[in-house]
């Protein structure tokens, strides 16, 4: 596929720049960064720099601002061999380049089944039909007249970490864990819209449907729909990005990303689930005995260390080191994150910083003095319901290795004496 070669080129480029940034001598350490005293004055300080003398661009140079040119390697990346065609494929959030809890809109991973629908909002309609008193059609303008709310939620693809069941495979948390993002949505509680049509007493399920070429559909119990689901038209304050379902998407907090129907155009109410392709052929979890779980909606408690990690090695030598990562659970808030640097022999509780919101990612830090020796980094999240993130072996013992979905196991990064990191499994 032609995309594959360009993809490779750009990734190679970033690896090259990583190497030049990192270490001339093969490892990841920057020689000299550890010396406490400079041998000669730093010309960056003693000489006047261009940006200090000459005027920069004026205010309108970029009416819509973009990141610094020095951040050009901070991009979503895909794994070309995973799928037959980029129109039904996925790319991954660069978790190792981000901090805090909010994912910038342009870096939220993408997963489409029929490409990105391009819809003029003036041409978009949302229909409510089925077991309702009055089937209705809304324009986007109509939707914006319902009372709104703002909520921060993570969205995780059920297949996140799905390539790691049989063992360590992809070298970077972008690829092992990057099918998650965390965004503040502005929109309307779904219950307002369903109540406007009037759900009949027999109505027990909804079927949201997308307007894209995959006409994506999933069955969702009415109870969830009436609880915390939203119809969102803004993400992080601005209009949804086309790849995230512009102009409207469904928000299904804590549940599989596939259910968050993008380009939402219709919601049907029924008395039974529909057993659509995405809840039979896909998004069902095959177990070792050949049976398969269906309707595995909630995303389990999970965490990952984003730095250091294979794409973000330690470049500064021993001494003060910031370890950081993300934790989340579809069952509520994260109560605690423990970190181990010796491969799970001993654990210490990490510091959570930033907002702690239900069904949103939490940012944790563990600040420690690295002595330069080999480390095995792990993180383990515990949510407010008392669910503890399991080990890979616990999950494999319960399910086998063919589930694809819902791999929330503890990840291990090996830190080598040169500061580089690798995705490993340990005894």
């Amino acid at each position, binding site marked *: 596929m032609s995309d594959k070669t360009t993809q490779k080129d750009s990734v190679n480029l970033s690896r090259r720049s990583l190497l030049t940034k990192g270490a001339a001598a093969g490892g990841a350490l920057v020689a000299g960064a550890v010396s406490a005293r400079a041998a000669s004055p730093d010309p960056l300080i003693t000489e006047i720099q261009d940006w200090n003398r000459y005027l920069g661009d004026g205010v309108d140079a970029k009416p819509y601002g973009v990141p610094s040119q020095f951040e050009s390697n901070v991009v979503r990346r895909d794994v070309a061999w995973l799928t037959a065609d980029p129109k039904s494929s996925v790319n991954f959030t660069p978790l190792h380049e981000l901090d805090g809890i909010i994912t910038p809109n342009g870096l939220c991973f993408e997963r489409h089944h029929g490409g990105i629908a391009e819809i003029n909002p003036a041409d978009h309609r949302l229909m409510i039909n089925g077991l309702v008193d*009055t089937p209705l059609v*809304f324009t986007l303008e109509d939707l914006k007249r319902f009372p709104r709310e703002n909520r921060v939620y993570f969205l995780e693809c059920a297949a996140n970490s799905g390539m790691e069941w049989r063992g360590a495979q992809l070298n970077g948390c972008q690829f092992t864990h990057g099918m998650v993002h965390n965004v503040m949505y502005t929109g309307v509680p779904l219950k307002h819209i369903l109540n406007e*049509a009037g759900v009949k007493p027999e109505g027990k399920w909804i079927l949201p449907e997308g307007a894209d070429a995959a006409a994506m559909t999933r069955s969702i119990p009415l109870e969830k729909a009436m609880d915390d689901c939203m119809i969102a038209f803004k993400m992080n304050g601005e209009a949804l990005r086309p790849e995230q379902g512009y102009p409207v998407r469904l928000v299904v907090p804590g549940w599989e990303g596939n259910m968050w129907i993008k380009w939402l155009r219709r919601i049907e109410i029924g008395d039974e689930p*529909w*057993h659509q392709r995405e809840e039979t052929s896909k998004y069902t979890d095959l177990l070792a005995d050949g*049976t398969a779980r269906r309707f595995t909606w909630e995303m389990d408690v999970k965490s990952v260390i984003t730095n250091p990690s294979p794409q973000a090695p330690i470049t500064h030598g021993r001494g003060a080191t910031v370890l950081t990562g993300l934790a989340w659970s579809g069952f509520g808030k994260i109560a605690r994150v423990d970190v181990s640097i010796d491969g799970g022999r001993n654990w210490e509780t990490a510091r959570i910083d930033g907002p702690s919101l239900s069904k949103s990612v939490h940012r944790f830090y563990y600040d420690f003095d690295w002595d330069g020796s080999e480390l095995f980094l792990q993180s383990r999240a515990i949510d407010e319901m008392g669910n503890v993130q399991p080990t890979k072996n616990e999950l494999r013992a319960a399910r086998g290795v063919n589930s694809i979905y819902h791999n929330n196991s503890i990840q291990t990064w090996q830190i080598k004496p040169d500061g580089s990191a*690798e995705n490993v499994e340990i005894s």
Partner: protein
Amino acid sequence: MLKSLKVGLFAGALATATSLAGNALAQDAAAGEKVFKKCAACHAVGEGAKNKVGPQLNNVIGRTAGGVEGYKYSKPMIEAGGGGLIWEAETLAGYLANPRKFMKGTKMSFAGLKKEDDLANVIAYLATFSEGAEPAAEEPKAEETEQKSETPSGNSSVAAAPATLAKDAEVPSHGIFHLGRVALEEEITAWDIDVRPDGAGLPKGKGTVAQGDEIFAEQCAVCHGDFGEGKDRWPVLAGGQDTLTKERPEKTVGSYWPYLSTVYDYVRRTMPFGNARSLSDDEVYALTAYILYLNDVVTDEEFELSDSNFNEVRLPNEANFIVDNRTEETHYADKKEPCMKDCIAEPAKVTMRAAVLDVTPDSEEGEGGGSIE
């Protein structure tokens, strides 16, 4: 040109084609880029374009039909090229308007572009990747430019207010907020095409295995293979029975899917990939019957599937789906306070590394295993 006429493939498409040919290159290549999305599932164009399901389309204008080396064309395409068919604005317009009418037996399973503008624009777009083709006239017409700067979405930041006074607006009586309008029956019928395992939602209609075989060969086999075995990485639709407990399970309609209704529903809403909603209800019945046949669920080529016998068919794996019981797994059920100190006696030893099987995108090695589907 006469030579290509000798091939005798033009039929009715020619009338449209010639009227278009004259101004095709003057059309809008930018608009054509959008139209090309309909083609992009199967064709690549531009720098480094490779053959996909269809041949790459660089320099297609002026090229002999079937002229890309290394691409496996259908016999009719090769014969047409041998007979002198050259891709030019008018021949392309004829082919793209109705591929199978223009060239019986072509393996391009594409319904055709119905709008003349789309045809002209996509050809103009292809011309931008063809050396020697006249460049498209890109200058916009004067009136158009003027109009643009007047629209509120252009330079002005103030949106136009509606023409009627706010107090005269009609407020519907339904609901709590009185928003939206009542959906019409025709609108619901147009969008509500979902089908349930109990048959609710099935349209009237019928189709046989043999009919499905023919449609499948024309419209589906390029990706899914003649027997649903799946070409390259396109999905496998048949086989895999008894593999669910094996090391590499093959999940197909026959080995895994619980309900036949899902096949009907999904094919009708999404397939063929890149040309959704183009099949008639009867064609979907025939294709569903054929997929059953490929999976040995039915064995008679004359078997006819219809809305009246649909519910009699059961898929073999239906009973093997269970409810979500993750919370009963011991690691969740226990809800134990996890160990914090000296949890494992021996020091950690590496048992597996990602670098051994280096399939991360920046590595030089090939492809990994596993799936995200």
